[in-house]
């Protein structure tokens, strides 16, 4: 019989190895899934993971997309990872992303058509504040009324979606749009446009912000008492209180910070790649970022790599949809599977497998 035995301390090797093993296992299981859907599994895997970067025909278009897609994923996941480490489960980043975009776009539309250098910085501020405020709602409810922040943050996603619909159809609707839903396109408003910084790379301000967030989170977690307190609270809440951590302040910090980063991601998206507020502006970055955070071991550098990998599956998925007729949903299932394999593999970090005589359980 196989049984598990708790390790005296977590294995560092396994904690690095599991994400890689999870990716490999997902490719294999995904291959079966694609074969089941009647696609050649090897071709499908190559189309998703190889062609977007190295195929002569597609790479020129796909490569910049990598950073465009990875930027918001990394930015949001960095914020979420701090909370997850502290045991604060904000799963409503999608809502904070939407509200950040709404506030940021609102700032831009309020200034339209003024051409001034301060419009874009004000939008950035607005985006961060919007996401922060939306994240603080579950934070305040949790600290004041002990309400479960997981459920509240998630339910607020649906509220944010309705709010966005009402904005796209009402207050923010483009007056020159001939009655079509959706706001003005910020791509036509230079002072507000988040343009590509280096042509052909996909690098925009949001990607820069993501890199800064990675560095910031790394320093915070490894060199600062705040990061230490976050880790301590997640691992041993009573020890944290003993060490003088104020749990409520930490909860508010985590929810506010992750909300602000998600809001920023929304702002950079609406001001750049998306260009406008529409009913279907959000595409699930806030949920995929949860996978990115776990796949990256809640470690800033890991999240950077995981964000790039996840962005690749998005682009590769689109390519596979276009080339092989692979349904878009297959990629979503594929990403979910990745998280399963990762969580399953985690057991190896804390437990050793023993084969032999069993204990009576």
């Amino acid at each position, binding site marked *: 019989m196989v049984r*598990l035995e*708790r390790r005296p301390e977590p294995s560092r090797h396994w904690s690095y190895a599991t994400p890689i093993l999870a990716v490999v296992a997902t490719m294999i299981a995904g291959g079966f899934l694609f074969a089941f*859907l009647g696609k050649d599994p090897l071709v499908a895997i190559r189309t998703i993971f190889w062609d977007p970067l190295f195929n002569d025909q597609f790479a020129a278009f796909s490569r910049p997309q990598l950073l465009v897609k990875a930027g918001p994923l990394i930015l949001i996941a960095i914020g979420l990872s701090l909370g*997850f480490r502290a045991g604060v*489960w904000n*799963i409503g980043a999608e809502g904070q992303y939407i509200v950040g975009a709404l506030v940021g776009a609102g700032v831009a539309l309020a200034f339209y058509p003024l051409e001034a250098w301060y419009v874009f910085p004000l939008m950035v501020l607005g985006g961060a504040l919007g996401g922060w405020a939306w994240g603080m709602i579950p934070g305040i*409810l949790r600290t004041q*009324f*002990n*309400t*479960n922040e*997981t*459920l*509240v943050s*998630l*339910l*607020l*996603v*649906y*509220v944010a979606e*309705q*709010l966005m*619909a*009402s904005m796209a*159809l*009402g207050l923010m609707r483009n007056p020159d749009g001939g009655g079509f839903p959706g706001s003005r396109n910020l791509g036509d408003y230079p002072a507000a446009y988040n343009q590509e910084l280096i042509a052909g790379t996909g690098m925009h301000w949001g990607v820069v912000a993501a890199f800064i967030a990675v560095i910031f989170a790394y320093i915070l977690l490894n060199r600062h008492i705040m990061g230490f307190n976050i880790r301590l609270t997640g691992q041993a809440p009573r020890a944290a209180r003993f060490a003088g951590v104020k749990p409520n302040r930490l909860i508010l910090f985590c929810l506010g910070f992750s909300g602000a980063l998600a809001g920023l991601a929304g702002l950079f998206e609406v001001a750049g790649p998306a260009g406008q507020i529409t009913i279907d502006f959000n595409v699930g970055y806030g*949920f995929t970022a*949860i*996978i990115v955070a*776990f796949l990256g071991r809640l470690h800033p550098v890991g999240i950077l790599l995981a964000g790039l990998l996840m962005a690749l599956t998005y682009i590769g998925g689109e390519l596979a949809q276009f080339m092989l007729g692979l*349904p*878009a*949903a*297959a*990629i*979503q*299932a*594929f*990403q*979910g*599977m990745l*998280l*399963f394999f990762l*969580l*399953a593999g*985690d*057991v190896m970090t*804390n*437990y050793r497998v023993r084969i032999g005589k069993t*204990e009576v*359980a």
Partner: protein
Amino acid sequence: MDLSSIDPILLIAALMVAATPILLAAIGELVVEKSGVLNLGVEGMMITGAICGFAVAVETGNPALGFLGGAAGGAALSLVFGILTQFLLSNQVATGLALTLFGLGISALIGQGYIGVKPPTTADLNLPILSDLPVLGPILFGHDAMVYVSIGLVIAVWYVLKFTRVGLVLRAVGENHDAAHALGYKVVRIRLAAIAFGGGCAGLGGAYLSLVRVPQWTEGMTAGAGWIALAIVVFASWKAGRVLLGAYLFGGITVLQLNLQAAGMKIPVEYLSMSPYLITILVLVIMSADKSRAALNAPASLGRAFHASS
């Protein structure tokens, strides 16, 4: 706005239908949580149940088989959660989230060929005489069988938890898994059974959504119903009877806002549509603010991993 177009009798009858999916999912999750497991994947299990039930009903032409298929789909997905959390000791919150993300993906994948298809209709019971009673007839006796199944399930869960040995053992495992283990109870096995039951109920709820309530298949059609079911378990402070109350209250709000939309109320549609979510949050806040009550009823081992170390 024309409020007179809202018929209170039809409203009550409709709220029972609107509440049934959530009621089914919530009563299943109640059992799971009573055993000490927090499965946040209700949304994923519901939507998987919705498409499995829909597909089976369409392929066989038999709605009853469809409901069975939905329950089986939800239970199968829940066992993935069960294996990960009970054998591989993964974090329950993270695994529940993964279940939801995966469920949304896999259901969309299965549902490729079913968009726009009409499912076979689930007949109302239409009991002679009883259904024709004024007022009471349409409210109490004019529904399809699943409405009664869901109420029966609530009563059964209440009875089993309160009066039977199985219920006592289940509560004991959720309260203190180490003590239950020391007394010789199979903690992991009991929890797996509870998880599968919860998955089956969530799947049934999903199938009701796609076969009766809507009735058609669209991607992401559960639209947060699973999360609301989770909230209702908290609202009910882990008591079966109050799950019924919570679900019907929620159903009432949903139906009322739909009626107000139809009656052309001056509030934009979007704000009416967000009201069920806002009210769910409000109810959560009110329930959780009372610390003593919530703390007494929540199973003490909820969400904690169990490993028989010695």
